[in-house]
């Protein structure tokens, strides 16, 4: 079996109000060295397959068609044998 570990992130040009709120909280906690916080999504998909090439292509299609919005987000992933 293979597991795709997928990270979906906001493009750098897109404001992230959640990240900003977390940065503010970190500042209240005394971390005055925090420059920026960005919130991302982490998604795991398990595949009943040992074919890394096909599973990689499938994962890419899944990200393009559903998991990431190309207007605002980018993604990257890695495949892990499980």
């Amino acid at each position, binding site marked *: 079996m293979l597991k795709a570990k997928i990270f979906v992130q906001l493009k750098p*040009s*897109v*404001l992230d*109000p*959640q990240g900003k*709120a977390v940065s503010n909280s970190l500042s209240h906690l005394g971390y005055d060295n925090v420059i920026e916080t960005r919130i991302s999504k982490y998604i795991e998909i398990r595949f009943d397959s040992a074919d890394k090439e096909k599973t990689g292509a499938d994962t890419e299609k899944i990200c393009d068609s*559903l*998991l990431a*919005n190309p*207007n*605002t987000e980018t993604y990257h992933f890695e495949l892990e044998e499980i």
Partner: protein
Amino acid sequence: MRVSVITFPGSNCDHDAYEVCERRGHATRMIWHKDSDLENPDLVILPGGFSYGDYLRCGALARFSPIVNEVLAFARKGGLVLGICNGFQILTETGLLPGALMMNRSLRFICQHQYLRVESAQSPFTNGLIPGTVLDIPIAHKEGNYFIDAEGLARLQDKDRIMFRYCDAHGMVNDAANPNGALDNIAGIVNDAGNVLGMMPHPERAATDSVCSNDGSHIFKAIELFIDGVA
């Protein structure tokens, strides 16, 4: 005219839209998202709500409902499609409208009356309205912060595709009057052909005399003028 209102699992403004269209004398149908027939409408309404619980991204999963393929085909043939709130989010996810609706800059769900300025009369949804007119139409959303890249924004501006901007009671468009952080105070846009409108405010919640604003009825009148020739 004939109106079809789509109900997705989690839609919650479908009955409001239905009620307003019925009261205005239109043959109105409720269409379930698993149906594959729009029943020959003049206007399709994608209503507000929380389709699929807003899972993953607002509107992202509704895109895969069977009826959406029919809506896409209808829109490509020039049929009128009005997406309100979650309906706007679905339209951006389908690609019928550009950009995306991001989380409000306050991170809060906002439910309030909101002034909008009519920016253009060049659409079936605003024809007959005078640009600069201020409408009082409520908003209710957490993800209404419109975003598009610089190139896309320039295209919207250059092609007169921004129909409504958030403003104050005097029609001033500025940051103080922007409830959610939307780029360029954008509250509603149309596609290139002008037959698909997405807007975050809820005209169906302000379209009878029994509620405190009736300004949403201007948008329904504009559509009636376009389809039936009379408002």
